[in-house]
């Protein structure tokens, strides 16, 4: 463990901050990236999250140097990188399909960047050994790539990307080919590895849970533009707009009406715990933030009543669909604890619900 501590300090010194300034990439008249600016701290784990075609992979390719931006600059530790070819950037990268060299052994794959950097043979052996140890695959050094499982390939790709102590680690949906259990295990391992090495990491995914689990901060990208940059918790609890609210987590969007001095939903004034954007028009309700109404909540809760339509029992949680009039429904998620079940009526019965003012989110748009 002392060696891990050593490597930590030694490598943290290397981690570089990145500045992305006004990056735009157009293909003919299509804007893959539209004026994207970001500051990434040294040693930060930043995730680019967005639906497919949002531009998140394009941004990663611009960072890696495989795609030349139409406008804008990339600075790494204050140094201009925009026109630097990929092989001179000193960024590690884990590719979506791993891109391991099939004609080389596991050892030779990991040794490849070190050989290019003309490290002495003995040193290469030691460094490859250490990288393999970090991904817990020391026993596979002499294996052929084709003899590895998907999860093993993933780890070898990771080992190859970090073995030369790059200043920045880029990861392009590295876990998308793995099954769910392995994916969740690797999420934790990659994050732990990041904490050990302290390397600035930019991680691309379309899986919101993965982003929430792993990241220091998440950049939500939509249509080539940055929609919101925030910590996982802030992103979930305070989505800045309807896209983020809809893309991250489950949510029901309901139109609100604007009255002088506030907003109303179905004629009731809405209480909100924080400043509301001026163009607000929709209420975002997270299913798990809804509670059964208790006496004395009128002060700081918004209240709803409706008829229970259906319950979907999903094991650890259940999802209740509640019709609240005017053809609108709310979704409520609850644990399947007996106390919860005791308070749920049969379908068709009446339910009274409450939503805390702090959990009441208003975003733009809607019909009002």
């Amino acid at each position: 463990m002392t060696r891990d501590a050593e490597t930590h300090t030694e490598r943290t010194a290397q981690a570089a901050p990145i500045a992305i300034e006004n990056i735009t990439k157009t293909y003919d008249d299509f804007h893959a990236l539209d004026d994207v600016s970001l500051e990434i701290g040294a040693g930060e784990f930043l995730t680019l999250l967005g639906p497919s075609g949002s531009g998140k992979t394009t941004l990663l390719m611009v960072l890696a140097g495989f795609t030349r931006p139409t406008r804008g600059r990339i600075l790494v530790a204050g140094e201009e990188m925009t026109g630097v070819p990929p092989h001179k950037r000193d960024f590690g990268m884990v590719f979506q399909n791993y891109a391991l060299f099939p004609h080389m052994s596991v050892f030779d794959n990991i040794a490849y960047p070190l050989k290019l950097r003309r490290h002495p043979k003995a040193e290469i052996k030691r460094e490859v050994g250490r990288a393999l140890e970090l991904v817990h695959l020391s026993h596979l050094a002499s294996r052929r790539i084709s003899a590895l499982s998907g999860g093993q390939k993933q780890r070898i790709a990771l080992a190859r990307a970090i073995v030369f102590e790059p200043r920045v680690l880029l990861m392009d949906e590295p876990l998308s080919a793995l099954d769910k259990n392995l994916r969740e295990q690797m999420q934790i391992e990659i994050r732990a590895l990041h904490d050990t090495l302290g390397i600035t990491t930019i991680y691309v995914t379309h899986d919101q849970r993965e982003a929430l689990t792993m990241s220091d901060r998440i950049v939500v990208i939509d249509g080539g533009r940055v929609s919101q940059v925030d910590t996982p918790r802030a992103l979930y609890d305070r989505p800045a707009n309807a896209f983020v609210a809809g893309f991250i987590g489950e949510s029901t969007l309901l139109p609100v009406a604007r009255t002088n001095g506030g907003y109303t939903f179905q004629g009731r004034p809405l209480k909100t715990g924080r400043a509301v954007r001026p163009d607000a028009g929709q209420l975002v309700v997270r299913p798990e933030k809804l509670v059964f109404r208790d006496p004395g909540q009128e002060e700081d809760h918004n209240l709803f009543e409706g008829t229970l339509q259906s319950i979907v029992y999903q094991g650890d949680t259940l999802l209740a669909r509640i019709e609240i009039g005017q053809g609108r429904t709310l979704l409520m998620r609850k644990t399947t604890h007996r106390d919860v079940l005791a308070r749920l009526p049969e379908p068709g019965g009446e339910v009274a619900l409450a939503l805390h003012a702090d959990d009441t989110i208003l975003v733009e748009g809607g019909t009002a």
Partner: protein
Amino acid sequence: MIAIDEAPSDGRRAATLSAETREQWSMFGLALPALLIVGFLVFLPVGWLFGLSLVADGQPSLVHYRRLLEPAYLSIFTQTFQISFQVTAMALLLGYPLAYLLSQIPRKVAGLLMICVMLPFWTSILVRTYAWMVLLQRRGIINGWLIDLGLIDRPLSLVNNYTGTVIGMLHVMLPFMILPLYSALVKVDTSLMRAASNLGATPMRAFFTVFLPLSMPGVIAGTLLVFVLCLGFYVTPALLGGGRVIMVSMKIQQNAAMYFDWGAASALGVVLLAATALLFWVISRVTRIERLFGGS
């Protein structure tokens, strides 16, 4: 091959096996006509020729083979292998960059360029060979241009010799090199080149350490195909060599058609076949082709 992960009950296993056996037999039935044609049209004549090569004046004899050890015949074999080797090497050197280009450009453009590569296939080999004679002769277009450009004073002898033979054969062989090369090169995953570049390899280093090794199956396939076709090539060397270049195939024709010496012709054919087979065997031993693919 039957791979069974969890052992099924014996009954089920037997049922699976018999179904599989039945399918194998019906597949064999489908292949039967082709097998018969190959059997009758290839193995029978080859066997018959092999028999002829061991008979002289109605007696079993090795005289036809012994004659092949004479210097005149040895030099024909040497020349045949030398030309074949040279043409193959030049075809690889010319074909690889072209196949590489085709593999890197958009598929649609590559398809158009591929038609240009295939164009010679659709022209009679005899027409092409005579065209080369016109181009290469002393007062031909090529000598004319070179003199007009002031590069040479006197016409070069480009035809009816070794040079003409190599040029003509190279032209015929190039598509046979490019096609297998191209099909191997387009299969090389482009993300591997990106990975190499990301890990610090210059484009040149990435090519030699990643792309070239992964394209070896195509190189081997193209090289073998062209070399073997060269060994038995007749029309082009006969016409462009002007009698100064004698390849084994021409000697076979001479023996059979001019001297009616089927024994001698057969012996030459058998030795050429054996040499080719030996070559295949050596190459398959030296290179583990399946390893180059990264598969098992």
